[in-house]
């Protein structure tokens, strides 16, 4: 039995301790926002915050998160209550196919939680573990900078009818 915090709630899972956390979250807990992309910790689609750090959960055994805090994309926000990072993602229309974006948002959130004014080099370092086959990297970079500015302002204004992109 492995007990940990999942999106702020205490959970206990009675499954083999060598099961990767990704499959526990997706199949046992039915939270589908975190994705399977490679099974080898190389693409970042499975990223979750483990005690605040963006972590590849496709190679992280269940036993390793005993007593820890696990936050998935579902724990960051919902369609009716977006986090600042998610608001920036929507405003910039970052996602194309969208499959990598939960992992991208997790890594961006971890970055901004630790660094409120990241440089381009900081962004490269924090985000290069998350692959995007559709090539949305420049939009991700713009969204991170927007989110950083929003977080530093301390006031979140979000109007879903307004586009922040230029033609």
């Amino acid at each position, binding site marked *: 039995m492995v007990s940990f915090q999942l999106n702020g709630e205490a959970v206990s899972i009675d499954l083999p301790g060598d099961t990767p956390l990704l499959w526990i979250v997706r199949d046992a807990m039915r939270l589908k926002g975190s994705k399977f992309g490679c099974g*080898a910790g190389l693409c970042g689609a499975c990223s979750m915050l483990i005690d605040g750090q963006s972590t590849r959960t496709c190679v992280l055994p269940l036993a390793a998160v005993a007593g820890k805090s696990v936050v998935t*994309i579902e724990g960051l926000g919902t369609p009716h209550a977006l986090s600042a990072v*998610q608001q920036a993602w929507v405003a910039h229309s970052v*996602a194309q196919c969208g499959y990598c974006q939960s992992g991208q948002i997790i890594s961006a959130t971890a970055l901004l939680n630790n660094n409120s004014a990241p440089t381009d080099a900081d962004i*490269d370092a924090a985000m290069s573990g998350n*692959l995007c*086959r559709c090539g949305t990297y*420049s939009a991700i970079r713009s969204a991170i900078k927007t989110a950083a500015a929003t977080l530093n302002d301390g006031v979140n204004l979000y109007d*879903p009818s307004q586009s922040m992109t230029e033609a």
Partner: protein
Amino acid sequence: MNTSRRDLLKMLGLASSGLMVNLALPSFGQQAQTNNSGFDANAFLHLSTEGVLSFVFPRAEMGQGAFHGLTSLIAEELNVGVAHINVLQAPADPKRYGNPVMPQNMQMTGGSTSMIAHYQPLRQAAANMRMALLNAAAEQLSVDITEITLDQQQIWLAGQSFPWGDFAAVAAARPVPIGAPVKSAAAFTTLGKPSQRIDALSKSTGTAVFGIDIELDNLHRAVVVRCPVLGGRAKSANIEAVAALQGVVGVYIISTGVAVVAEHLWDAKKAAQALQIEWSRPRPLKSINSAELPAQFADLGAKHRGKKAHEEGDETTVFADASEAWTADYYTPYLAHATLEPPNCTVRLTDDRCDVWTGTQAPDIAAGITMSMTDLSPEQVHIHNQMLGGGFGRRGGSDYIIEAIDIAKASGLAIQLVWSREDDIRNDYYRPPSLMRMRASVGNDGRLSSWGCQRVGPQTTPHLLPEILQGVSGDVLPPTIGRWLGRTGGAALDLFSVDDSSVEGLFGDYEIPNQSIYQVTEDPGLRLGFWRSVGHSFTAFGKECFLDEVIQQRGEDPIEYRLRHLQNNPRLAGVVSAVAALAGWSEIRDSGRHFGVAAHTCFGSSVAEIAEITVSSAGTINVERVWCAVDCGYAVNPDIVKMQMESGIVFGLTAALYGEINLVDGEVQESNFHDYPLLRMSESPAIEVVIVNSTDADAPLGGVGEPGTPPIAPAVANAVFAATGQRLRTLPLRLS
């Protein structure tokens, strides 16, 4: 996708014999909207009495933005916000939801065709619905139609508004007008403007549903172990031993290998590792080593002229007589698609019904294959197409659907088949390898006088035909016959003809009076498919790099020399000029920094790119910046056009710098992202895009999903030459 399939069908005589008419898929009788109390204006649009407008989206969304783009057409003509439309995914029904620019109206998404295909018809459908609602409102309110307008889900009469749902019942009881006036571009409030994608919210919250996310009661998970040589068959396996492992409910030999079914995916994966399988390996593939292909292809090209694909004037003589002439060979390898969502399919099969959940670019093929494998009728087969975690052509192949149905039949269970990344890299429909033997000459006027290319390599369409024929004939022919037709057609194409996708893009851009393009077909046997930009993905490399060789040898300017050969090609000339202006070409070209230029037209759009690179002391090529100019005709959704250029460039850069699939004794060597790497954020250049001709609403539309890709590899290779003097004629680019 291109006209090669239509040409093939003509060549096979099937179209003229009427056989294909008889094989045309019947209506599947499934409506995405079934609320009879509302107004069905046509197969796409329904307005409920509560005022909810539903739109049946006829294509597949794989990131390219058609989900938003086609919905924006409806929003414009019905004067409603795009985000206020309830978008439903179309079922498999090519009569209603087929792609009008595809042969036989196939329900295929690909070839950068979605906006081209639907721009006029969907606007007309929405305009007709608008007119129907205005007519109904005029009747119900007893006013003249000139006194009312429709805007923001309301009918407006002299400052008073009525919810449009109030008029749905009357509209449903009257004939729907045809040919209602569509808006002029000057009146557009949505099209041609910046916009926020309507799928942004779900994809930013982890709530968008992909095929791999489907859950059902009593769903079991399956993995398949396949022959290390693609296409091999399992002769025997230690089935009983593996079936006894923890959590396993069954082990089955299927058409492509051995399937392990368990309640939990992790149990299935672990058990699959214990399989010991005896394989029958296919010929000739089991003897193929890809390292030998360039020399083998060169040898064949020297011995055989091949089949003529295109000819103008007398290239042979002009080249032979020229005083200034060049030759060079260019080689491009096999490539995998590597969609980030690996192939997967969920199947629930009963005696009288089959439900299939997956992401597919071809739901009608999926339905036909399901019918052929289950003997169910069209009304009993339900394809539930999801958001695709990447397509790029990969999900036009139905192999994972065939496997899942195989496993559902063998096990009697509802199953979800999930491929690993290793499965995906090693069991693709690969982009074919090509040797392009280029030659050209220049006349006294300094212009190209002749242009020749002999392309040696396998042809792609023959590999797709068995599945396609099985799919389109699924309810009338046994699967073996359908596939036989496809194999026969494919063999005929290889023997007698040239598949457009083998040579497209080698000619047609520049004005050169003498041209000859030939195809020599040699197929090592590895399964092929359409990869983003298809033939253009390799022909642009040969064409634009070889052109640069001529340019550099003659000391010409890469922008001006191209323009000299584009006197009658305003679209391509326009983007060449525009990218030069965007980059400030006249200032930067002699700055000491290193640039490469490439320009190419495909799928109706012209794109020109300039790449700036630096080279590290270790010989690493760093792509610093890319400038891009695109002419796709009217830019219906300019934000999406820009995104697709960025997407195509990054996709093409992975191929330029890293992409290669190698075979040793027929076994694909690559397996995951450590040895088949994708470009990362830290390696990605700054990209600037300018959209040319974007506001000319009468300009013929071109596609944008693929055209950003072909120019980037040659632009980078040309920049490498500028930086180092090394002319790299092979992809991926490696400095020595």
